């Protein structure tokens, strides 16, 4: 067993990010031809993030549009184009909070490790973890829209502080440092929340797999 090797994915994320940085630099230099590709680069990503955060397509459309409007209203304040992605998502996060009328100071729902760790079953040599058979699950999400729906539902059910970390880190491919900057928390907090979010999603998928197998 070795750690996952998402090298191709990270290469694509990096290329994507480099393109966003280049477009932001061109816009900063007054190159109007960078406007359309910049909008295209972010519109889909902002919609995806907002949809997962808000849970409603109509709200997500509005959040994506409002975020982009704020981005251009405040473009002169973007001092470091190399951080454009984090800057844009920070605006999106704030727009989402306002949209959901939820204060950042509202009580947050926490996930404890005990809630998301698997249970043991059996005794002695027959002792094993009570988890579903994951071997039949495809590696490629596109293969099965039912599984895609299960994954989406599992993420959407997460408490907000965990969902936003998982979306930034695993769906948008941001680094721990970038995510910490967007969320105004330390990198350690990002790591802790990401781990609990992943365990909770794994647990929800596990339950869904067991239900399908029953």
């Amino acid at each position, binding site marked *: 067993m070795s750690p996952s090797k998402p090298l191709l994915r990270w290469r694509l994320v990096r290329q994507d990010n480099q393109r966003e940085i280049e477009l932001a630099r061109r816009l900063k230099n007054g190159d*109007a031809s960078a*406007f359309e590709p910049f909008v295209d680069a972010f519109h889909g990503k902002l919609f995806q993030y907002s949809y*997962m955060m808000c849970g409603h397509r109509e709200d997500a459309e509005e959040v994506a549009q409002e975020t982009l409007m704020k981005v*251009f*209203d405040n473009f002169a304040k973007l001092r470091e184009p190399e951080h454009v992605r984090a800057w844009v998502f920070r605006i999106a996060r704030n727009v989402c909070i306002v949209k959901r009328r939820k204060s950042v100071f509202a009580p947050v729902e926490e996930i404890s*490790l005990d809630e998301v760790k698997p249970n043991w079953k059996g005794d002695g040599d027959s002792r094993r973890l009570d988890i579903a058979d994951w071997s039949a699950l495809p590696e490629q999400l596109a293969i099965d829209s039912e599984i895609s729906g299960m994954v*989406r539902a599992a993420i959407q059910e997460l408490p907000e502080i965990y969902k936003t970390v998982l979306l930034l880190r695993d*769906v948008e491919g941001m680094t721990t440092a970038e995510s910490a900057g967007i969320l105004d928390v330390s990198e350690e907090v990002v*790591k802790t929340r990401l781990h609990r979010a992943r365990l909770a999603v794994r647990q929800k998928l596990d339950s869904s797999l067991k239900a399908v197998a029953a």
Partner: protein
Amino acid sequence: MTPDECQKVFASLSEYLDRELPERACDEIEEHIRDCEPCIEFVESLRKSVALCRQLRAERPSAPLPEDLKERMRAALRGIPSPGSEA
């Protein structure tokens, strides 16, 4: 998970999968996993769950941005604030 070693592995799995652990800690986890069938099974399920989340990019906006909104964005970029903007 009850055994202490499994518990320790469980607490660090995300950092292990992200290759963010120091080499020594990574080696310790691999040494444990090698001989622990339940942990192999669990790590595999978590790895697959993370991989599925990373592929989640199916939802797209139903339509491109309206042209009038884009015009307002272009104007804002040229330094003409949009109505109600804070800039």
